[in-house]
């Protein structure tokens, strides 16, 4: 057992966990942040995607202990109160989700895509960049639309800040 200290969604947290505990299980089982999902056991599906120090990572593919001292953002931490993150709003407005299970990981990965590419996104790039996130419901059509839509809004929001 180790005590793991890290920042999650802006709050300092501490948990006593077995060293073999994965970050995703720390989030779900110890911090009750169940928005981060587990969809596979081979690091392929991306349902568990969170941001670690600002970058998208698969929380099922790292130990909680590896995240000690880092800052983690989950799907629960991106809206400002009642105001949705532009990516969340874009997924809703473009019907970019159906069963909702892949959605948190998809949104976290998509925010990361926009951060890295800024306004230089096109459909081909978005499809390639979504390689690590599997959705079984939407055929990706509306997810791609949502990411491109949000990229526009995020650019505007950044410019306004």
């Amino acid at each position, binding site marked *: 057992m180790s005590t793991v200290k890290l920042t999650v969604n802006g709050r300092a947290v501490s948990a006593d966990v077995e060293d073999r505990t994965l970050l995703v299980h720390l989030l779900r089982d110890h911090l009750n942040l169940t928005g981060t999902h587990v969809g596979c056991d081979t*690091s*392929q599906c991306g349902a568990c995607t969170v941001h*670690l120090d600002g970058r998208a990572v698969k929380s099922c*593919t790292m130990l909680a202990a*590896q995240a000690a001292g880092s800052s983690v953002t989950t799907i629960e931490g991106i809206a400002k109160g009642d105001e949705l993150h532009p990516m969340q709003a874009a997924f809703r407005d473009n019907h970019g989700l159906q069963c909702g299970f892949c959605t948190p990981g998809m949104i976290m990965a998509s925010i990361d895509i926009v951060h890295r590419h800024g306004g230089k996104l096109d459909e081909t790039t978005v499809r390639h960049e979504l390689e690590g996130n599997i959705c079984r419901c939407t055929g990706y059509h509306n997810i791609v639309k949502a990411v491109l839509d949000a990229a526009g809004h995020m650019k505007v929001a950044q410019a306004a800040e």
Partner: protein
Amino acid sequence: MYQTTYHRPSSVDEAVALFGKGNDAKYLSGGQTLIPVMKQRLASPSDVIDLARIKELIGVDVSGDTVTIKAATPHYEVAQNSALQKAIPALAHLASHIGDPAVRHRGTIGGSLANNDPSADYPSAVLALGATIKTNKRSIAADDFFKGLFATALEDGEIITAVAFPVPAKAGYAKFPHPASRFALTGVFVAKTRSGDVRVAATGASQNGVMRVAAIEAALKANWSASALANVTIAASGLMSDIHGSADYRANLIKVMAERAVTAAG
């Protein structure tokens, strides 16, 4: 995952010392292979020693005719490094096509080479560019480093600290991704050194892991162009065969990917 004990050393020396103390320790770098394997209970190290936060192992250095990538540098950093992009664009291109974005944020060159998965991308670049693998003990030439499937010249407890790539005159990488896993079903890295030598390495193809492709090297040495490969045939013997790629298909891919890599190299 079985029980294990996690360590986070702050230096290479401390990491080596910790390794010596564990009865079945393993180094953990980006963890994009080791963690999945541990989750499936196919590996059960007593201790995992995290190298990813050791400052001396992170960074890219481009100076004159050498690009040095420190071992715990994530693929994303390699792909984004503007000096590296200028010096060896094919290497940046390769790094930008490993796994997926989240994997590239964590996975490292040192981890990839130490694991030596027969379908990993980096070994092809290391071999084709004739890179040198630097460890805490010595320097190992690429030609001496890869020893077959998941096997390398590394000794027990030895840590890769950096990889030094000589800047080539021309280089290109073309990968045909495995449809499911997105590893290389076959990937080919072609390089023309500044002295005029040609080295070609294929990954994802051979039953013995990354390999040089002599027939293609000879053809390209005579004529550095895709059309030079028109009459080259690659034997299927010794190549991997599975539901996604039979040996004869992979043999074809070696040639086709080599053609495309040469075209990309210009």
